[in-house]
């Protein structure tokens, strides 16, 4: 833990360390307070861990899930090391893996914000706060389940993709490839990454190509070998990739990411969108089914609406810098297109990637409802980081200079109160 904190501080992320420590302790508290087997499908995931650990897989009548085995393999050492503990304490120990993942997700949101907006302390501070204190995410990260690792690996994917778009570098490309491999093996819902890879490739191929052209012959040979290894790896991964592609009738996988007017109508219909929104922000503790008060959802919706307006303002201002209309009585209308600076280019590209991520996640969640059994708001949590980045960027555009310090403070404290009250005001009264 101290090595992790020191590592973060060394990489210039000193300002985020207190928040990361807070997130870890808060996650430990949530792991302790969430009653045994109170997380979403926690019993089935426990059966997964038992299976990977070489024990009888059936647990309390539940059989293992058909998800990838990355998450249970990662937590199996904790499970085996705590063999002498009572079942409740063992569950608590395995849940703590989520505390570490949560801190890493918050850190990734900070790193991504810093890559895109290196000079904005406001966004670098605000985006991690939004991720750190999402009440529903706090409960998911305090449970045993593969979503814990899926949200982390998708956040890592988005960070490396963003970093690569901003500074094309073979090391970053390799890290992205590694994340894609691990993500593919983690869970079918990682399919979200593939359309994004295709979208980003349009920008990445020329950027990386330019970089590779400047390499010496030795570096090129190494890159060729890396490519051979990647292709070989993909061959090995084919069964997992096939599962990611999925089928439309099964309601999951890449097959569902195609235009369907039913999905559009579903989101437009009102109750579905409202339900997903409520569950994304505060639907606690799996089968206990505890929602926040209606007023709290209204306040969150108002803040998000303001952020959306801010994003619009931000986009308009950026566009106005590039495209300038003019009018004079002599010359009539004139149009001037200024050259796009590298900074504008990277900000634009990365915002497109973050927005596309959210669009794909929203589409996929609708597809789960139409083709699958039903959708849950927690499926949107894989977009916790891009949603926070876009919200922070939107709020930044609307916040006047004198309030740049005050807004993150008010937002941070309000979200912290909301987050902890998830336990004291919503979970405890029903469960304890």
């Amino acid at each position, binding site marked *: 833990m101290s090595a992790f904190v020191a590592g973060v501080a060394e990489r210039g992320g000193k*300002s985020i360390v*207190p*928040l990361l*420590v*807070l997130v870890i*302790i*808060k996650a*430990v*508290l949530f*792991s*302790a*307070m*969430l*009653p*045994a*087997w*109170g*997380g979403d499908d*926690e*019993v089935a995931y426990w059966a997964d861990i038992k299976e990977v650990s070489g024990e009888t897989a059936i647990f309390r009548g539940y059989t293992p899930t058909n998800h990838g085995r990355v998450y249970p393999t990662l937590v199996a050492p904790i499970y085996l090391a705590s063999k002498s503990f009572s079942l*409740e*304490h063992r*569950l*608590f120990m395995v849940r703590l893996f989520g505390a570490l993942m949560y801190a890493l997700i918050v850190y990734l949101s900070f790193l991504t914000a810093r890559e895109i907006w*290196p*000079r*904005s*302390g*406001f966004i670098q*501070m605000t985006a991690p706060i939004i991720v750190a204190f999402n009440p529903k995410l706090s409960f998911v990260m305090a449970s045993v389940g593969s979503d814990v690792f899926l949200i982390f690996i998708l956040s890592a994917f988005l960070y490396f993709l963003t970093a690569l778009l901003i500074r094309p570098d073979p090391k970053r490309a390799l890290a992205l490839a590694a994340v894609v491999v691990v993500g593919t093996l983690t869970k079918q819902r990682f399919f979200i990454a593939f359309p994004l890879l295709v979208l980003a490739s349009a920008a990445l191929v020329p950027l990386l190509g330019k970089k590779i052209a400047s390499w010496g012959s030795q570096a090129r040979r190494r890159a060729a070998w890396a490519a051979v290894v990647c292709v070989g790896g993909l061959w090995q991964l084919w069964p997992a990739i096939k599962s990611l592609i999925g089928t439309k009738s099964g309601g999951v996988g890449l097959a569902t990411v195609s235009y369907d007017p039913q999905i559009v109508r579903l989101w437009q219909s009102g*109750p579905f969108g409202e339900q997903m929104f409520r*569950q994304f922000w505060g*639907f606690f*503790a*799996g*089968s*206990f*089914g*505890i*929602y926040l*008060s209606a007023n709290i959802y209204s306040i969150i919706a108002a803040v998000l609406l303001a952020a959306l307006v801010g994003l619009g303002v931000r986009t308009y201002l950026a566009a106005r810098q590039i495209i300038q209309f003019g009018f004079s009585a002599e010359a009539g209308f004139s149009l001037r297109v200024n050259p796009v600076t590298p900074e504008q280019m990277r900000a634009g590209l990365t915002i497109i990637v973050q927005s596309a991520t959210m669009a794909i996640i929203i589409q996929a969640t609708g597809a789960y409802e139409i083709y699958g*059994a*039903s959708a849950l708001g927690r499926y949107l949590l894989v977009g916790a980081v891009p949603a926070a980045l876009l919200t922070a960027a939107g709020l930044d555009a609307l916040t006047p200079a004198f309030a*740049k*310090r005050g807004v*993150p*403070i008010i937002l*941070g*404290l309000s979200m*912290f*109160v909301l987050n*902890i*009250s998830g336990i*004291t*005001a919503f979970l*405890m*009264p*029903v*469960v*304890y």
Partner: protein
Amino acid sequence: MTGSVLKAAAYALGALGLLAFIFLLRPINETAVIQQRSGTEISEPYLGRTLNASGGQEIGQEFTTPGPGRLSAVGIFFPILNRDSKGSVKFELFNNDRPRRLIMRSETAVSRLSNNEGLTIWRFRPLQVTKGEKYFIRLTVNAEPGLTVFSASGDAYRGGNARLDGKRLGRDLAFQVFYRVSPAELWSRLSSDMPNLVGPLPLSIIVVALWAAVAAWLHRLLTFRPYSDA
């Protein structure tokens, strides 16, 4: 040095105040009378079967208060089968004395019920009750093709029975009843009989650590630079 100590004390007090505020901010400080002690238990015996009612039919459930307190909400567990149902359901709560006395009435669209995602909770002005009082929940179905409620396989709850169109069934709905409790009572539950996984002492240590972390984070929030030229 003295200044730093004072500053640290100020932040720590601020963090403590924040945590105290959170504990006192309890808009739905209720606790369940009929409750499941762990997540898996909810599937048995309370979710063993379903009870179906078509348009115009009435589903009911009696319950008995287990002790003195302030009755404040009732929750019912609906399955996903209601997803395609259109219409509404009338929720009524009666004191089951003769004659029945209406406590609360509310009309809810079926689309707003929590389908298979936990309880749909109806709240009302808290009602002072004593031990052994009888109450009756009635759901009048104004929806097509109908409404389905999770129920126990058998007579899981001893304080009453489910009813369909007034006819007593030998089982119970999947339901919970909530009471308001004082912060002091809530804390005593937390530190004694509790489903938390670590016990009172480790939990207290975690809360103290959280308090210190909040203080450090507050300090960082108050000193960060909104913009940097680096």
